[in-house]
């Protein structure tokens, strides 16, 4: 029998995970992207490579190391200990941490590109107009990099929604805690509940298409507004 009420919890959990991850990634990714775009340090490309690693690393490998790090003997276990827990593995918090690593390149790269695209000149102009670095960052750099922020946020969100391998390794399949959409689809298929799998998979397909289309339209509009 088709149980529609069963479909909702994984959707809500996934949206929560993706929203929290995206906000965290914007907060963490922006300074990293700024540093990668502006620094003249020679080893910055090493940092850039580390950030980009999840693009090519098999999710299971990333998930394996995250599992160890989040487990009772890793730093994750130590943090969990502060709050009376044993481990961050197989928790929603652990999933957020894993997603931040996993989706990092999708947020950092567009923002870095946007910061690099406008060059030094606008910031120099702002400095000659008495704007201190922090001031010019907010009033010039961020507005000029807006297309990069939009792209980064959309990609980061969408990519987190579609995450599977890492979730399976570090989150498992706990309803209401770590059972996100992709895992739910997998489970429905395993238990031969095709109708539920169809609804969720179809929904994700429409979602992914809408995301890509919206982004392309946005980019075209923003490109027209540029000088």
């Amino acid at each position, binding site marked *: 029998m088709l149980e529609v009420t069963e479909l909702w919890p994984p959707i809500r959990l996934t949206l929560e995970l993706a929203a929290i991850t995206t906000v965290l990634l914007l907060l963490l990714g922006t300074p990293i992207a700024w540093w990668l775009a502006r620094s003249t340090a020679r080893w910055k490309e090493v940092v850039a490579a580390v950030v980009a690693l999840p693009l090519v690393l098999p999710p299971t490998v990333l998930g394996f190391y995250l599992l160890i790090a989040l487990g009772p003997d890793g730093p994750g276990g130590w943090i969990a200990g502060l709050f009376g827990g044993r481990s961050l593995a197989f928790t929603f918090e652990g999933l957020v941490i894993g997603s931040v690593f996993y989706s990092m390149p999708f947020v950092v790269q567009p923002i870095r590109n946007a910061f690099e695209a406008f060059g030094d000149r*606008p910031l*120099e*102009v702002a*400095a*000659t*107009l008495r704007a201190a670095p922090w001031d010019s960052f907010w009033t010039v750099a961020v*507005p000029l990099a807006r297309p990069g922020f939009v792209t980064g946020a959309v990609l980061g969100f969408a990519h987190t929604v579609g995450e599977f391998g890492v979730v399976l390794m570090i989150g498992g399949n706990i309803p209401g805690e770590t059972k996100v959409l992709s895992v739910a689809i997998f489970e429905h298929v395993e238990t031969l509940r095709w109708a539920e799998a169809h609804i969720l998979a179809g929904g994700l397909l429409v979602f992914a298409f809408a995301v890509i289309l919206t982004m392309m339209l946005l980019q075209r509009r923003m490109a027209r507004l540029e000088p």
Partner: protein
Amino acid sequence: MTDGAATIDAKFAGTLGSFSLDLAFEAPMRGITALFGPSGCGKTTVLRCMAGLNRLPGRLSVGGEAWQDDAQGMFRKPHQRPIGYVFQEASLFPHLSVRRNLFYGSRRAERNGGRGVLASQDVIDLLGIGHLLDRAPTALSGGERQRVAVGRALLSQPRLLLMDEPLSGLDRMTKEEILPYLEALHNSLSIPIIYVSHDIGEVARLADRVILLSAGRRVADGPVTDILERLDLQPATGRFEAGVVLTARVVEQDAAYSLTRLDHHGQSIALPFVDIGVGEEVRLRIRARDVSLATRKPEGISIRNVLSGTIVEIVEEPRTAFAEALVDIGGGRLRARLTREAVSDLGLEVGMPVFALIKSISFDRRSLSAVATDID
């Protein structure tokens, strides 16, 4: 120029990438001082060092206030210096309207207690940008954009205005559209301007003093008239455009023949009509190649301008056909570009009285500037 409060005192020495600079100069706290030289001579680097955008070892004080002094380990960041900087490209913020671009600097200057010497409405009127305020920078022409950039720099209440080839990115028509605004700026502002340019025509029209640079070193420095008269600086000032600047007064607008007549220390110069009021003082640039010399006063000749003078210097250029003569015409001096053969045939020599001939049609609007001369 020993009074520190009245001068800009700069000294920079060091290397930036593969480029080396070693320069010290003083400039007055008024008028336009041009940093002039060929591309790659380091003039933009000097300007950027003055703004604090680049840092080379040295010192800089402006009107008695130290902005950089490496002996004391002192360096003010660009945003802590009361400067206005006009870049080669207008570089308006594309995400802000013209109005918000204009007031970006002034709001911050006021917050830091900057004295509002320049009323914003005056600046907007002076530059003729009042009708553009609500537009986006992308909707402006190149000339309008550069005028807004100048206005934005001025509204930040600078004590020193730095301009880095503000006209070089513009076509000739647009340049001609902007130059009168810059002339007006010069005449009505009390802020000193350091003006970087590689165009001798611009320098002759606008600058009071010139610092001539070559390969990161100072070649010459002085009032614009003196520098332009010096025959030995030709490789730096350029051959084709070499010439002098005279100060003259408009004495008559001849409507019948559409001529403007000027008086230069009792000698008359006629040129095609230029819209400047009778009695006003103007600067006139006369190129050496437009001046011919005669040993007797010619008669039956179409050339309108015959000025009497005395040769004060002749420089022959070995292995070329050319020579240049400097002629004192009582007040100012003219440069004349001749052939060496003519010098020999006419027996031209220093101290000889001659007549300098200039065709009126060799002048155009670009030869003339309404900038009052402000030269010691």
